[in-house]
């Protein structure tokens, strides 16, 4: 395998948690709900996916249950910010704490303190005949685990949904100008709740990917900031599915570079190279702040009886 293919394979593999978490964030955000619980919900997804896979013997069941666990948190976020009109950031942070605690708690309750952590089989590679034979890119993209294909197809589907269907148009209207959408008969509450539920489910799935592809087991802190980076990525991708995809490739490349440069022993202290993804992200969001526009009503709750224009 050539060096370029090897690097590309690592990047594509590392992209998936970013794509899933960021598209999930985007989906809720386009309807106006700014989710900040990613880091916790991803940890919960990782913990649940590992534990359920271990106990049920099926990684698919593990993935589905992780998705559902995330969806429950999305439901709380959606209901608390629409029906109860609580502050989105405060509810999001509370859910972040609860999910972080729950992730560790579940692991400790089910596994306890183990010297030799139990392992689950990681997701199998599914080689797509024909496409996988394309030079350089083929093996990197088309000889991957199922979630890679899922993440890529999901991004395409979300793009189509948002920009080529009337449902997507209504969804975007809720995040841009809910008063207008409301006056035309779009339910702000149900749109926001449904997108939050699906979005949080995807975020948890992004977390589930980490144990089921990389390690085969759950450890605390394994999400390692990817949840927060996913928020940055969503801003960088201007809350559009088609830009989040290349953005995720960039974030994944930073992560891979940070690890590979450490291995190759370039003469910079490895601690500083480990900072690369975060520092690069700080620089990147400066660029994003210049050109990327967020949904106009992002982070704000809608009150039909409000007298202000928006």
């Amino acid at each position, binding site marked *: 395998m050539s060096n370029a293919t090897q690097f590309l394979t690592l990047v594509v593999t590392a992209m998936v948690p970013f794509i899933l978490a960021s598209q999930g964030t985007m989906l809720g955000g386009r309807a106006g709900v700014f989710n900040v619980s990613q880091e916790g919900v991803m940890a919960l997804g990782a913990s649940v996916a590992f534990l359920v896979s271990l106990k049920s013997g099926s990684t698919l069941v593990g993935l589905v249950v992780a998705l559902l666990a995330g969806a429950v948190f999305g439901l709380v976020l959606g209901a608390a910010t629409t029906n109860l009109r609580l502050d989105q950031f405060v509810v999001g942070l*509370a859910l972040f704490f609860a999910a972080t605690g729950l992730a560790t*708690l579940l692991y400790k309750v089910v596994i306890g303190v183990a010297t030799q952590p139990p392992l689950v089989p990681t997701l199998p590679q599914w080689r797509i005949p024909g496409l996988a034979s394309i030079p350089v890119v083929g093996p990197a993209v088309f000889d991957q685990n199922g979630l890679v294909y899922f993440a890529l197809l999901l991004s395409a589907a979300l793009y189509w949904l948002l920009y080529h269907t009337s449902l997507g148009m209504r969804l975007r209207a809720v995040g841009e100008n809910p008063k207008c959408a409301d006056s035309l008969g779009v339910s702000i509450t149900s749109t926001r709740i449904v997108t939050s539920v699906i979005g949080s489910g995807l975020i948890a799935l992004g977390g589930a990917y980490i144990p089921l592809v990389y390690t085969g087991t759950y450890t605390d802190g394994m999400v390692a900031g990817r949840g927060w980076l996913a928020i*940055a990525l969503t801003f960088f991708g201007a809350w559009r599915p088609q830009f989040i995809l290349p953005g995720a490739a960039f974030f994944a490349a930073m992560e891979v570079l940070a690890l590979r440069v450490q291995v190759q022993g370039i003469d910079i202290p490895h601690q500083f190279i480990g900072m690369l993804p975060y520092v690069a992200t700080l620089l990147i969001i400066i660029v994003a702040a210049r050109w990327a526009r967020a949904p106009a009503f992002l982070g704000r709750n809608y009150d039909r009886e409000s007298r202000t224009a928006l």
Partner: protein
Amino acid sequence: MTSAALAQLNRPAVRRSATSALSYIIAVLAAFLVTGLIILWLGQDPVTAFRSILTTSFRTSFGFVETLHKWVPISLLALGFTIPLLSGKFNIGGEGQLLVGACAAAAVGITAQGLPAVILLPAILIAGTAAGAVWAGIAAWLLVRFGVNEILTTVLLNFASFGIVDYIASEVWSDPAAGHPTTIPIADAGLLPTFGAPPVHAGVIIALVVALVAMLIVRRGTAGYELRAVGANPRAARVHGVRIAGVAAAALVVGGALGGLAGAIEVTGVYGKLIEGLQTNYLLLGIIVGLIARGNVVALPFVAFGIAVLEVGASAMQRTADVPNEMVLITEALILIFILASTVVQPRVGRRSR
């Protein structure tokens, strides 16, 4: 974006008295009720667990001192979260600010051997405070100059700070005998004085003074008034000549300084050196306290003490009732959610909505 929350935060003290206290009590009881049900479901005894959680801090003097020592960073980080929150900004970077503060404190304490305590100790505390302010200052600058969301930048700076701690503790002043990234001890003259037995370090007094000064400034000072004005209604504040971007940035820097001070106190008061991971979960606890206190700087130190009691009790609970200590994090999140929910249930006289 947050003015609805801040309308809740800044409600006049009169109206938040009786009903508010009652709703707090109900929220705490409800959170414990749910926690108890979860513990029962786990097959453990909730009564034993709760007894450990609530009484460990008061049963022995060691427990009480440990609680006081935990209270210091929790209350400082909670204040560092609350001051920017009053201006409508979320400082989620307490962890990074604490860590760079601890790094700076360790650097001064290790390199300036031989200085007398009257110079060295203030120098260490000032270095830590300044480092925290600079670290938050990066986020403040990005916010003012480029309009970058401060939640993101402060969080990313947390992760960036881990590298600095690791570098200092395992390359620059590493103590190879420790077996974990740890620096060599700082000069003895740089250690905070202690009093009583078991010893309580003077950081407790520093944190008390900081809490009192913060109360005075936020409640009575001009700066505090402008801060709350920006948070409650940025447009009105700007019309009346408050430089809102400057106030928000200054609030973030002050918040960072408090985090840095907390880090310096951990180094000079608790560990006497820099140890990787000394921040434990203080960031989460600080934010929880800040959100539960809802911008009330008078209530904040008391809430912080309550959370410190829960945290000290949590590790005891893990031993006595075999319930993982993360259970307490869930209890705290539940308290927060129930308190939030109670604001909806409470009759809202003259509620402003957007």
